[in-house]
């Protein structure tokens, strides 16, 4: 069965690139352009993994993750944050949320899908 991934990012290019890379690696991918849509979509589709940008138009990625953790249906879905700098852009607040990882921006197109796969339990 195909693994299903949800990508939440407000940048069309990022969505497209990450979607392509994951689809090539055999994922079934759905997309959301803000946190609210992403949370709705996560509850409905219960993906195997969520890839989330840290800076979203309606709230910070970490806040969206906290909301997902409070819901029984989504509280165990692994979340991968794609964050701009290696520097601690909210690294501590991410670490405080269970079952999260992160990948630094810019993503390495050659390893991205593999890294994401490894995070799925």
């Amino acid at each position, binding site marked *: 069965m195909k693994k299903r991934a949800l990508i939440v990012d407000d*940048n069309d*290019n*990022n969505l497209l*690139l990450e979607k*392509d*890379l994951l689809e*090539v690696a055999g994922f079934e991918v759905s997309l959301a352009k803000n946190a609210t849509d992403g949370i709705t979509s996560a509850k409905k589709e219960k993906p195997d993994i969520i890839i989330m940008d840290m800076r979203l138009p309606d709230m910070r990625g970490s806040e969206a993750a906290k909301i997902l953790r409070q819901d029984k249906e989504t509280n165990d879905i692994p979340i991968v944050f794609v964050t*701009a700098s*290696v*520097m*601690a852009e909210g690294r501590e607040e991410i670490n405080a949320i269970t079952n999260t990882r992160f990948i630094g*921006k*810019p*993503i390495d*197109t*050659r390893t991205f899908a593999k890294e994401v796969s490894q995070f799925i339990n």
Partner: protein
Amino acid sequence: MKERNKNKESLKCQAETRTAAEKIIIKQLHHEIEYRKKTEQVTQDARNYAENIIDTVREPLLVLDANLMVISASRSFYQVFKVKPEDTEKKYIYDLGNRQWDIPKLRELLEKILPKVTSFDNFEVEHDFLDIGKRIMLLNARKIFRETNHTHSILLAIEDITERREIEKGLEKAHKELQELASELKRATRAKSEFLANMSHELRTPLNSINGFSEVLYDETFGPLNEKQKKYVNNILTSGKHLLLLINQILDMAKVEAGKMNLVLSNLPVKSLLNEISLLVADMASKRKIEMLIEIAEDLPDIEADELKIREVIYNLLSNAVKFTPESGKIGMRAKRADSGIEVEVWDTGAGIAPENMGKIFEGFFRVDTPYSRVTEGTGLGLPLSKKLVELHGGKFSVESGGLNKGTGVKFTLPIVSKKEV
């Protein structure tokens, strides 16, 4: 006859006694005159002495009698206030210079304050004089009592502080302006670093897309490219990565300059780090047949530092050495324990730095022409940024060169424990 003789004798005797007495008196008078002459001489000496002192002092001085008539004035008084002795001496002080000295504040000092005290210092008087314009003066007054006639004279020292006040005012104004400038500068610096932080995010987002899509294309993930397409995509990717490096380095420079570069300190095993990076560069060097000598002291201690930053510094220096060294040249790295830290030197036998360019190498975007490799490979920011990163750790950074084509040596130190920089 006998009687007459007797009288004559007695008269003679009397006269002789009187003469003797007169002689004594005359002698005494003579002494007295001598004594008075001497005393007068002493008094004259004392007066000359006093007048000489008064004339030597740069501050104008006036000596007044108890009725505020000028007894004498110092030479500097005449010079400063441009008046003549004949218009001053034996004149009522308020009448001086066509009654110009009839100053209410001066009256207050002389008539109200001074009668109650023996001295008064730093009494400030401001007055607009006809000849010399507006003056600010500090007056020191002393009452000098004279035992002889039970009266007193007044010594009035007049310090002209007009210019000093002007300078003080100027200084105050300059100080204020400087403070305003400093806070303006702070504002501008903050605005600049905020701008740069935003700009770098705005620039990097599309650039990351360009690089990401080019990479996917180059990897032929969605189908094969012909030779030309592959080459062009590779050019896009190379330029994109160069641009990204440039943006990152500019941002780092700006952060260091704004004091916003935070070091993430951890224990750093320098020995293995140096070996690891030299292996990375060895590949680059061997491609150009450059011999590389690595001398790392056995007792090189671990240090506390920001690993990513130090890695960047060492990589910058070693790759510079390769870039600026001709084929069959030599490059090397020496590392040893120093006073309270470590010392690393990266050297090469390459292009060197002309003495006239020594000052420019830390300015940023300055690149020495090298015939040995394409200079476009570098950003021109590696050296200045490395220097700043080393200094941020509390280390020293220096560059030496024997001159053009005489090779270059870059030396830096790092303390065992870096000072925690904010």
